[in-house]
C-alpha cells in the first residue's frame, strides 16, 4: 500500500540532510510501528509523505497504491487516502470544530467525485464517532483545538481520522500526553478502523500504546534511516533496554 524507497530528504532552507535512505513498505491490513530516538527523522518522514513545505526530496520515491505521492498536492494525497495525525495538532481560532470536520469530509468527497454528506447524515456520524471517543458536544462547537488539553487534541485527531476513513493512517506520537483512559479510547478508535484494506504507520516512543494497538511489524529509525525491523518483541526490547544495544549492534 505505502511504499517508500531509498528516500533522501534535506531541508529546503539549509544544507541539512535529515532522511538518508528510508526503505519502508506498509501492506494493506497491517500495522507498522516506528520507534527511534528523538531527532531521528520520524516526524520529518510523516511531513514529507503528507506534503508539507520546507523539505526537498533529493533521492528516492514514495507511492500510495502505486500513485506517486511526491508529485501530489497535500490535499490530493489526503483525497487519495493518506491521513496524518499530527504530533502537534494545530489550533485554528474562530473555526468551529464541527465546521472544520464537515468542510474536510466534503472536500475529500468532492475530490473523489462523491456527493456531499447531508447536514443530517453528517451530524449523526459525528455524534456517533465523538461519543465513542468521549468527545462532548462542547468540544465539537469550540474552535479547532483552541484551548484543548493535550489529550483532547490527540482525541480530536482520532475523531478526524474516524470521520475521514483514510486508507493509510500515519499517527505521529498520538499517545504522548494521554492519560491511561484516553490512551485506551485512542487505541479503540484505531482498532475500530483496522481492516484488510487499511494500513497504519504508528510512530511512538512507548510500548504502552503497542499493548493496545498490536503492531505486525516494528521498525527502529535512527539518524534518518530504518536500522532495524522486527516483530512486536522489538518494541519490548526498546522499552527494557533503550536504543544503545540496538544501535551498537547496527554500527
Amino acid at each position, binding site marked *: 500500500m505505502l511504499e517508500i524507497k531509498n528516500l533522501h530528504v534535506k531541508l529546503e532552507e539549509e544544507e541539512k540532510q535529515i532522511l538518508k535512505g528510508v526503505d519502508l513498505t506498509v501492506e494493506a491490513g497491517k500495522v507498522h510501528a516506528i520507534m527511534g530516538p528523538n531527532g531521528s527523522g520520524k516526524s520529518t518522514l510523516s511531513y514529507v509523505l503528507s506534503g*508539507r513545505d520546507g523539505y526537498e526530496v533529493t533521492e528516492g520515491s514514495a507511492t500510495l497504491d502505486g500513485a506517486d505521492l511526491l508529485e501530489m498536492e497535500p*490535499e490530493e494525497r489526503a483525497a487519495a487516502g493518506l491521513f496524518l495525525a499530527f504530533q502537534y*495538532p*494545530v489550533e485554528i481560532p*474562530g473555526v468551529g470544530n464541527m465546521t472544520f470536520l464537515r468542510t474536510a469530509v466534503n*472536500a475529500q468527497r468532492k475530490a473523489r467525485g462523491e456527493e456531499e454528506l447531508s447536514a443530517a447524515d453528517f451530524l449523526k456520524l459525528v455524534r456517533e464517532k465523538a461519543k465513542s471517543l468521549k468527545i462532548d458536544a462542547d468540544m465539537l462547537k469550540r474552535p479547532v483545538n483552541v484551548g484543548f488539553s493535550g489529550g483532547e487534541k490527540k482525541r480530536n485527531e482520532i475523531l*478526524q481520522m474516524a470521520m475521514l476513513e483514510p486508507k493509510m493512517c500515519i499517527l505521529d506520537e498520538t499517545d504522548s500526553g494521554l492519560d491511561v483512559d484516553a490512551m485506551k479510547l485512542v487505541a479503540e478508535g484505531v482498532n475500530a478502523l483496522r481492516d484488510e484494506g487499511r494500513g497504519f504507520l504508528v510512530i511512538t516512543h512507548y510500548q504502552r500504546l503497542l499493548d493496545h494497538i498490536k503492531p505486525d511489524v516494528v521498525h527502529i529509525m535512527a539518524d534518518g534511516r530504518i536500522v532495524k525491523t522486527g516483530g512486536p518483541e522489538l518494541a519490548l526490547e526498546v522499552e527494557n533496554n533503550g536504543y544503545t544495544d540496538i544501535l551498537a549492534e547496527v554500527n
Partner: protein
Amino acid sequence: MRQLLIGDKCGAHTVPYIEVKNNSSRVEHEATTSKVDEDQLFYCRQRGMDEEEAVALVVNGFCKDVLQALPMEFAMEAQQLVAISLEGSVG
C-alpha cells in the same frame, strides 16, 4: 494595528484589527503584517481542503475571532468592512 495578508498576489486586501485583548499598556504604532499561518493552511490541506478553501476557512475564523473581541457597535461596522474587503480576494 495588526494585519493579515491574504494570498501572495493580494497584498492590498488586508484585514486590519486592533489588538484589544492586549493586556500590556504599550500601544504598538507600527503595523505588523503576517501571512496566513502556514501550519494552519497545511493542517487544513492535509485534511483535504484545497488551498483556496483552506485560506477562506482560516481567514474567516481569524476575522470572527477578532470581531468577537470588539465592542458590539464596532463589531457590526467592522464585519461589514471585512465582508466588503474580502470580496474577490479569495475564491
